[in-house]
């Protein structure tokens, strides 16, 4: 055996997968088509965002790398949706994408047990039974053996780039696609489909007139994504906002026939939540303008990213419509916008461990599974890496449940429901989102990271101190009364709170913890992060308790395991539609089974009876 594990691809999924496996002590090989492209931010130069920022922090809590990469390379930071409630607040940072890419390469390069190798995998090898993975075959004829293989091919599997009439076999503009691997997988009986995504043009900063745009600065204080860091010392640069107008839309409408999206050249589904400018103009004809965020791609780079107007129109049309936009009158395109279409694996072919049902030891993660976004890719890569390692240790896989992490929601949705378009995380996909605050990711997941061996004793101890501290703060607030002597330094109107406990007062929507901690210096002795965590816990207590009750019910069903080899043909009295779906998805639990679309409640009840019976027979 040459290696324990081979990771195919060096994107955001591949980085996390290879680091997790090698950090857990397994000899690992990462094969990538270009060593220089490891950790490249192919689309927008930003990490985080609503629910995505939560995912980054989850990755960090489990022992992944993404948070540390962005902490060290951010050039602007914002906490989004501060006014809309803690459950849906999240951090986002603009990244210096060149720095990010270099730091990722550097991190992987220094990692013990990890070997980086440039080549292109064309075939997944299996043993004689055809059921276990045995390694990979590369374009240059290298046959490399491994006990497990993690596929993170992103948009590269049979990728095709489109710019107007121009087409090329590429995974990213200017980078060749990975050909052959898709056919190899199809030959093994996997179902693959096509998806599409796109990017806008990158333009030269020196050709823009920023005076005609609105400046959008970051928050004055940068906050870290990583729980291991307390502060960030990085330069902060602004983004800019401008808008398209009717002239822009007229040019686009006139040239619509030259767009590969509308000429029928592209068959893959694109993401509806991130439509191209062509799509926006066609689908929302009433809108006379669309917003553009002009984002720097890095300090010391001229490239600016035109977020919001991804397009695959021909380059001359791109230039023409860009020049109708305020501030972009003399724009020079450095890289044109383009669409990319690629092979993805129907993710319902995976177990929640991200291992394929067909081939033991073959794991798939990231955009290959039909997702979109760096964060979505990273968390899958991490979980695939962890589960490959656990498999080699002959341990049960780590499955994060829907009430524990966005990562769990994402993977459960993918393997249970599949996806018709590039899957992006939204807070509304999580039924228990009050439990999934970004500031609680460490409380939720560090213990798991520690148990697996990706988090150190020190991190675990630090978490326990934090938990204790938060309890102390809450106890303090629960016991401290508002006294008349407090009134001098209290805000106006606080006399109505006289005699009430601080914890009770804090529940008023118009009261915040700062007003109270000024009256009680013992609170201010604790770290800022702990204080605000306590505040949210108290303010949302009622809602959280309500949610916990739902979670309790949910977990009961999740704990009813269904054996992998359970024979659904032996279950009498369920509809044939349900039976086919259950056979395809092979749910791990009654809970998962009940989420498969089209499986009826009564069929689930029958299934439970049969499960109980087969368990008894075994006893």
């Amino acid at each position: 055996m040459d290696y324990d594990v081979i990771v195919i691809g060096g994107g955001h999924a591949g980085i996390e997968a290879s680091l997790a496996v090698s950090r857990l002590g397994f000899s690992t090989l990462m094969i990538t088509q270009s060593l220089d492209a490891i950790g490249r931010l192919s689309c927008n130069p930003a990490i985080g965002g609503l629910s995505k920022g939560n995912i980054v922090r989850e990755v960090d809590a489990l022992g992944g790398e993404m948070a540390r990469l962005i902490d060290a390379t951010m050039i602007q930071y914002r906490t989004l949706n501060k006014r809309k409630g803690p459950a849906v607040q999240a951090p986002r940072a603009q990244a210096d994408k060149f720095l990010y890419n270099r730091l990722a390469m550097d991190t992987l390069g220094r990692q013990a047990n990890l070997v980086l190798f440039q080549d292109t995998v064309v075939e997944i090898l299996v043993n004689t039974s055809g059921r276990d993975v045995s390694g990979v075959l590369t374009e240059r004829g290298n046959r490399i053996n491994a006990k497990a293989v993690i596929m993170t091919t992103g948009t590269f599997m049979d990728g095709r780039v489109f710019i107007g009439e121009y087409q090329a076999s590429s995974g990213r503009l200017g980078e060749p696609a990975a050909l052959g691997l898709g056919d190899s997988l199809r030959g093994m009986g996997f179902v693959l489909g096509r998806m599409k995504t796109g990017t806008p043009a990158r333009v030269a900063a020196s050709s823009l007139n920023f005076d005609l745009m609105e400046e959008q600065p970051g928050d004055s204080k940068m906050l870290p994504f990583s729980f291991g860091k307390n502060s960030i010392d990085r330069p902060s640069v602004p983004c800019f906002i401008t808008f398209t107008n009717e002239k822009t839309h007229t040019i686009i409408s006139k040239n619509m026939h030259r767009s590969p999206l509308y000429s029928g050249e592209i068959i893959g589904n694109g993401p509806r939540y991130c439509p191209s400018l062509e799509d926006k103009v066609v689908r929302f004809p009433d809108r006379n303008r669309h917003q553009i965020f002009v984002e720097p791609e890095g300090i010391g780079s001229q490239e600016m990213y035109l977020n919001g107007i991804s397009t695959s129109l021909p380059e001359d049309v791109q230039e023409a419509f860009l020049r109708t936009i305020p501030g972009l009158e003399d724009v020079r395109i450095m890289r044109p916008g383009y669409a990319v279409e690629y092979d993805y694996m129907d993710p319902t072919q995976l177990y929640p461990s991200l291992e394929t049902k067909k081939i033991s030891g073959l794991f798939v993660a990231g955009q290959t599974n039909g997702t979109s976004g760096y964060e979505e890719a990273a968390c899958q890569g991490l979980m695939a890496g962890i589960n490959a390692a656990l498999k080699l240790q002959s341990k049960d896989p780590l499955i994060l449940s829907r009430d524990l992490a966005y990562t769990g929601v994402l993977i459960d949705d993918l393997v249970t429901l599949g996806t018709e378009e590039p899957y992006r995380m939204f807070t509304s996909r999580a039924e228990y989102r009050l439990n999934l605050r970004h500031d609680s990711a460490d409380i939720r997941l560090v213990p798991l990271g520690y148990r697996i061996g990706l988090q150190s004793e020190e991190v675990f101890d630090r978490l326990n101190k934090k938990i204790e501290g938060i309890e102390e703060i809450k106890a303090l607030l629960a016991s401290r009364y508002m006294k008349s002597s407090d009134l001098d330094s209290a805000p106006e109107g606080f006399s109505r709170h006289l005699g009430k406990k601080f914890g009770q007062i804090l529940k008023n929507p118009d009261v915040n913890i700062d007003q109270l901690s000024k009256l009680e210096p013992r609170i201010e002795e604790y770290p800022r992060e702990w204080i605000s965590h306590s505040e949210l816990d108290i303010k949302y207590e009622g809602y959280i308790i309500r949610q916990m009750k739902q979670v309790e019910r949910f977990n009961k069903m999740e704990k009813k395991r269904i054996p992998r080899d359970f024979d659904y043909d032996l279950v009498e009295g369920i509809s044939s539609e349900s039976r086919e779906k259950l056979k395809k998805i092979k749910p791990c639990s009654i809970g998962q089974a009940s989420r498969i679309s089209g499986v009826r409640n009564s069929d689930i009840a029958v299934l439970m009876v049969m499960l109980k019976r087969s368990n008894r027979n075994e006893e």
Partner: protein
Amino acid sequence: MEDYIYDTDDPIVALATAWSESALAVIRTSGRGSVELFSRVFSNSRELKKSLGFTLHYGYIVDQNRKKRIDQVTAAVYRAPKSYTGQESVEIFCHGSLPGIELIITLLKDVGFREAGPGEFTMRAFLNGKMDLSQAEAVAEIVQSKSRQAHSLALNRLSGGVFDRIDTIKKKLVDLMSIIEVQLDYPDDEIGGDTAVPSDSVLHAIEELETLIDTYRVGRIFHEGVVVAFAGGTNAGKSSLFNLFLKEDRSIVSEINGTTRDYIESWISINGIPVRLFDTAGLRNADHPVELEGIRRSEEIIKNAAVVLYVIDGSVGMTDEDLKVFQEKGKGNEYMFIWNKIDESDKTVPRGVFPVSAVTGKGFSDLEKAISSGLTGLEISGSELMIDSLRQRELLERAVAALKGVKKSLANKVSLDAVALDLKDGLDALGEITGEVSSEDILNNIFSGFCVGK
């Protein structure tokens, strides 16, 4: 849709006998704390709680809030694992009147029981090892057929109009949810700032749902019938009118005062509404103990009737007693005053009194119409929208409660993620009637209605 949880021990309740009028009915409960929970509505609670199982207890079901006895029952106590389900359980043997059963079940739900899902008792029995393996298939079939039946029942009961009305409200709430979720799923700067949540559409939905809930009474009347009783002085012609309704000579009609000593009841149909019509003893001063008892019972029936048909002897005119009742009840909807014997006299009929003749049948069909519209509060026609199942009413009430929460949260400027929680509850409740709303549905609605995304 709310998942049926088939393997828990939370307390559940269901009527074990058929849902129809009968002498006796059995209400069954099962689950953790059943005995303690039941004791909260049972007069003989101390003895009940001490029971080690397999004991019968006599007592009253008591509505603690209204300090009112509901029914006289016996209750059987079972202790786990020695019961049908293998769980702690109480079986209640009560009288078989449908409103009574409903009231008892409502009280039990108020103290913490949940209405059982289809086949849930049987399921629990199986899961707790109360059935041998060969019975498993049978259980599966029962669970399936019951839920199918429940499903088709629910659908059949829901007229197309009601379904559409609820579905329309639900769609409006989905739009509302989308307005909230798009602001939670996208940062301010990507969607051009805040979109106000239209609180008037919440109010509107609450109003519409409450209107639907009000139709429950009407629907229920059609479903189960309603009590209508005659009242009035002796010899005013109550029994003659009763017979006219029955179109058969059932009660004894005579010229001698006080022939109807007790009451007589019969089921009839007035314009399609099932009615339990009572002919009562005349209200007068009597000294015979049997008559006195008859009068006492009559008063009880009149008190509980939905509509009282007060008959005045038109050949005599209003007596002092008639006048007293007329002044007291003439303005309300419960009493209808009937001027009988118009064939015998041409006295002027006072306003608000129906002239009829029990002998010739004159004025009778107008009276029937007036009774039926009085009963329903609506002009009766087959196309009126009505809900007629308790389950539907409960779900609509749950939706209203959730929406009131939304209204309150919006008024108090609670953050949107918390508002969404209540709205989701409301949508789930309506979803149980007309079909589930998934997070994917909301996202679809967002993507088609909002131009979002960088």
